[in-house]
């Protein structure tokens, strides 16, 4: 049985007297200890999908479909708080916005241990120092006395990871955890997250716009466009032989270290949100392979790809 199972998830928010759909028809599973990357551009619905798992959706949002965690529907109220405290943890893009600036790093790390996990206060400090050591921060005793503004973004994100490890959750939701960091720091933070997650058998849902980063750190990838999953496959296969024209376009349009193209092969137009899409395939207006039929009917996601021409395009060697 999957650790997390999302079925036919749809999410809409009220805006100006109507419902604006942000996520539709999303099916996604994550096994124990598995790392899945949810990749997409702005407005694709990737963050909303992850947030729906722990009820962090905008006020008044209408959510339909099923989200099962360990076989049980995600609860509300006290049980949801319990789930967030012990079993599902989230890492955000900007740690500075999610760590109380007037409390010390030590308070931040030990508070959850003491209140949620029942660790005696005396032990919590020592445990926090060990956790900081694990995320590569030495001199932990001094760090615990520091405040968030005294730490760089990279260090603070590692503190955030340490706090997540403290609870030993079954699942980590990491929403663009390294986007605000420098490339060398990104490499280090992802390596730490990857290593410690594997050691402890934690599953991860990595939300990112960076296909290469997701491919390097995840077992499976799901690419989202306009609120839907358009392709979901093992990471190696998806990047080596992408099937959906959008995935192909994303991989091609990224500049490379090895070669210089006179012009980059671009996807025309801009990414759209689910509520902006017409009734056919949401990607059709930007797709070089689109037929008139693509604009008429929305292709179903068959568990691998959502494109009515995927099979014939692959045969033609288009990918």
């Amino acid at each position, binding site marked *: 049985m999957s650790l997390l199972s999302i079925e036919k998830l749809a999410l809409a928010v009220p805006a100006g007297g109507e419902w604006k759909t942000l996520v539709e028809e999303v099916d996604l599973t994550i096994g124990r200890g598995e790392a899945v990357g949810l990749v997409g551009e*702005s407005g694709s619905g990737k963050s909303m999908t992850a947030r729906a798992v722990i009820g962090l959706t905008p006020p008044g949002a209408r959510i339909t479909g099923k989200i099962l965690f360990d076989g049980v529907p995600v609860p509300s109220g006290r049980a949801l708080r319990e789930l967030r405290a012990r079993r599902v943890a989230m890492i955000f893009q900007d740690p500075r916005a999610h760590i109380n600036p007037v409390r010390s790093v030590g308070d931040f790390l030990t508070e959850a241990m003491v209140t949620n996990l029942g660790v005696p206060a005396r032990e919590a400090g020592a445990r926090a120092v060990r956790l900081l050591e694990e995320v590569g921060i030495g001199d932990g005793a001094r760090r615990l006395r520091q405040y968030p503004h005294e730490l760089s973004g990279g260090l603070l994100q590692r503190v955030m990871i340490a706090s997540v490890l403290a609870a030993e959750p079954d699942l980590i939701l990491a929403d663009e955890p390294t986007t605000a960091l420098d490339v060398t720091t990104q490499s280090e933070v992802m390596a730490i997250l990857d*290593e410690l997650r594997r050691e402890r058998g934690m599953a991860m849902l990595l939300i990112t716009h960076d296909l290469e980063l997701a491919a390097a750190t995840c077992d499976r990838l799901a690419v989202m466009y306009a609120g839907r999953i358009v392709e979901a496959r093992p990471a190696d296969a998806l990047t080596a032989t992408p099937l959906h024209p959008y995935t192909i376009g994303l991989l091609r*349009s990224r*500049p490379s270290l090895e070669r210089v193209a006179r012009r*980059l092969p671009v996807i*025309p137009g801009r990414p759209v949100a689910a509520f902006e899409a017409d009734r056919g395939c949401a990607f059709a207006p930007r797709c070089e392979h689109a037929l008139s039929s693509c604009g008429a009917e929305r292709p179903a996601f068959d568990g691998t790809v959502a494109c009515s021409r995927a099979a014939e395009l692959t045969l033609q060697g288009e990918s």
Partner: protein
Amino acid sequence: MTVISAEGLRKVYGEAVAVQEVSFTVEEGQSLAIVGESGSGKTTVARMLLGLETPTSGTITVCGRPRPPGRVSSKERRRRAREIQIVFQDPYSSLDKLQRIGDVIATSLSLHFPLTPAELRRRTLELLESVGLAERHAAMLPRQLSGGQRQRVAIARAIAVEPRVLVLDEAVAALDVSIQAQILNLLADIRERGEISYVFISHDLAVVNQISDTAIVMHKGAVVERGPTADLLRDPREDYTRALLAAVPRPGWKPTRRNRTP
């Protein structure tokens, strides 16, 4: 012809040395990348080129004329603006949210050229078209445009004055992947059309590879390596450049841990 010559640039804020001993030249039509991470001093160098910061020491020469620190007349400021323009990273905060797109461009034009209203209108539309926007966008406000479209407006505003040098400070960093490629192509087109030079400031080596001929790598305020971009990326000499390159996600790449932070 050398359009920019920077020699021994240094910028100190109180005790902190932001930039030390930075020298480089940019030739006409050339694209120079300044590569670095946060705190490397790359943006401070850009701001000094524009006159938004005053160097503590060192000299900047643009189009053969030195730009000594100190107050200058508004006439001289306008003349300098004709030589060098900038596009910032954030297209949300670098446009006036109450100014219509057409007026953004027209203001820039009328400041520098004596145009009749009809000519102003025609030239505005030409510029919008040259960056891939349409006439209908002229009447819109910045909030009605997407991030990529706003960055196109910022580019149109900058090239409106026909500058010799365009400084692009992380100008594609905040854009979606598919939009980033469109803007990089637009910048390549603009360079092919005219005699414009770029100073392209970026942390993204793949983007730098696509857009620049030569590059300097900055670390902690100083230049650690320089050379033709292709050579620099293929055969980096300095450990820091190697570390930067090794950190770029690509097929077959795995993130790695450095030594522990003390």
